[in-house]
């Protein structure tokens, strides 16, 4: 009620500053447009921000996006469904674009992708340092880094990266319990972290977690999938993964993990704006190569 009243008034309302707008396709593989200072005029919704800055065709009275820059949803040549999805600060919004307000510092990301495996990807890593820096719906949330070993190099690297960006983060042990109003970063090898209920969905594959990668039960291998759910690569020793997910009870959970300690260390070092930009998730091989997840078909 208070939020509703707060949003009322005459005129366009105060304009949010520091907003970014990115438009990509195929899970961020191709950038169609990127505006670090998009046109903003008064209080904007995600939809109005997009309409103001791109050529957009909408349907249902402006509630849904039909096409952006001439690219519309529908079906791919293979028959897989294709549609536009949006993320604010790396989180899938629970409401329509016309119902979601843009707040100061928000990173709005539209992506046209195949949703044959899942139409529910609750969180992505490609807006880093969001959501840690500006939070969710204009509200900055506390950040808790849960490490398998608090003094390990990967844990210290992750903390240092976050703090360098101005994100105050607390450290806790694995399995400290999910908090609905906190952002969690879980750091450790998959064998050490897979018991945490908030990351267990990753073991069940893309349909359950929205992450197109899956660890084997032993935690020794990491299989990467493409958009249609086909395995594209299987990484073993020294492989790492940075992914984000969200279950019903918890807030967003990022996981910096690997098949072993070396893989976790590689993943922690990849926690960087340029490495994560426009990625839904990121895998790192034993040679240090960074692979976008989901991977390219074929």
């Amino acid at each position, binding site marked *: 009620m208070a939020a509703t009243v707060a949003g009322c008034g005459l005129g366009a309302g105060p304009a949010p500053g520091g907003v970014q707008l990115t438009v990509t396709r195929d899970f961020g593989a191709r950038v169609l447009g990127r505006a670090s200072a998009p046109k903003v005029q008064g209080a904007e919704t995600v939809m*109005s921000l997009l309409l103001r800055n791109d050529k957009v065709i*909408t349907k249902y009275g402006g509630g849904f996006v039909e096409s952006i820059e001439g690219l519309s949803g529908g079906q791919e040549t293979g028959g897989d469904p294709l549609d536009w999805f949006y993320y604010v600060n790396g989180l899938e919004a629970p409401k329509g674009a016309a119902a*979601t307000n843009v707040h100061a510092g928000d990173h709005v990301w539209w992506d046209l992708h195949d949703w044959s495996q899942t139409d529910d990807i609750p969180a992505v890593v490609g807006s880093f340092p969001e959501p840690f820096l500006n939070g969710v719906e204009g509200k900055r949330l506390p950040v808790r880094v849960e490490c398998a070993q608090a003094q390990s190099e990967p844990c210290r690297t992750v903390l240092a990266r976050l703090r360098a960006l101005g994100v105050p983060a607390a450290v806790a042990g694995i399995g400290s319990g999910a908090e609905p109003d906190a952002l969690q970063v879980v750091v450790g090898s998959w064998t050490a972290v897979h018991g945490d209920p908030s990351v267990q969905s990753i073991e069940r594959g893309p349909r359950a977690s929205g992450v197109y990668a899956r660890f084997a039960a032993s935690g020794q291998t990491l299989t990467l999938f493409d958009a249609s759910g086909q395995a594209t690569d299987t990484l073993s020793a020294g492989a790492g993964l940075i992914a984000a997910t969200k279950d019903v009870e918890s807030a967003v959970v990022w996981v910096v993990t690997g098949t072993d300690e070396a893989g976790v260390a590689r993943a922690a070092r990849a926690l960087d704006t340029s490495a994560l930009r426009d990625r839904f998730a990121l895998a790192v091989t034993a040679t240090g190569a960074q692979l976008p997840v989901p991977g390219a078909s074929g």
Partner: protein
Amino acid sequence: MRNTGLLFYRRLASPLHATRAGVGAVWALALTAAALILYNPLSLGALALAVLGAGVGAGVGRQLAGTLRTALIVGLPIVAINVLASREGLTVFARLGDLGPFGQGNLTVEAVVYGAVIALKVTLLMLITTLASLAVDPDELLRSFRRLSFRSALTASLATRMIPVLGADARRLAEAQRTRPEDPSRGVRGRVALLSAIVGGSLERAMEVAATLELRGFAVAAEGKHRPWRSRSRRSSSRLSRLRRSPSEVRVKRPWSRHDLAFTCSALTVIALALAGRMTGAASFAAYPLLKMQIDGGTWMLCAALIAAMLLPFIDRRGIDR
């Protein structure tokens, strides 16, 4: 006769009334098409102005003014609903906050303008329909469809003739109801009683009309048309058909009058102008996401041409019965 509030055709001394019904109907259809083709508010306004002018020229301006008042009542909710429902505009003038499933209640200038354009289109359609129903002879129009489907034309003709009769019935019954001491005409019960009496009366009238038609041999003629022995009875059937018609109804090939030609030209010109306006961009208009409306010399010329094309046939009043 007291005005029943219903709009029905009466022969008046005007060029549109003097035009054959088919041409009048085509002219009205051309105006309807133009109203649907055009979106530019200026050209729609010109069209509305011209329709009102045509109403004055046809001697039915007062009735059109009544329709205009009704259209305003219809138009305001259209604008209000569009403002509340549309999320495509970008120029926010008021914010109602989060409306739950309806999204953020950001009211935009574009939604107001688009709603007004739709309301203007609805107004135009109502005005054109009123003008056509007042100035185009429905019997003559239906007669032209007789060859295609005799029964349908007859049914439609009878139905249109029954509307004023039922209106008069309703008025008479309501007056009779009011004469009763407790005045039962007020309230829902009184209205339901009146409605049921009118419906009952209409069924009774329908039976009377059916009996009359049967007596006049309409059923025989209609059946004979489709039967294989038609050739044998053609002579008697055509004699019966001729007998059935009054002398004024006997079909005589009527030459095209100057009014027929003028209104045909007007209809073609209006359609051509509307299409040209859309194709050349002289009447271009986009409400969303930001208002884009063409207003230049071409737009003004289009508006002037539309008004002239619609009103010029009303200037020639020679040969009109008074």
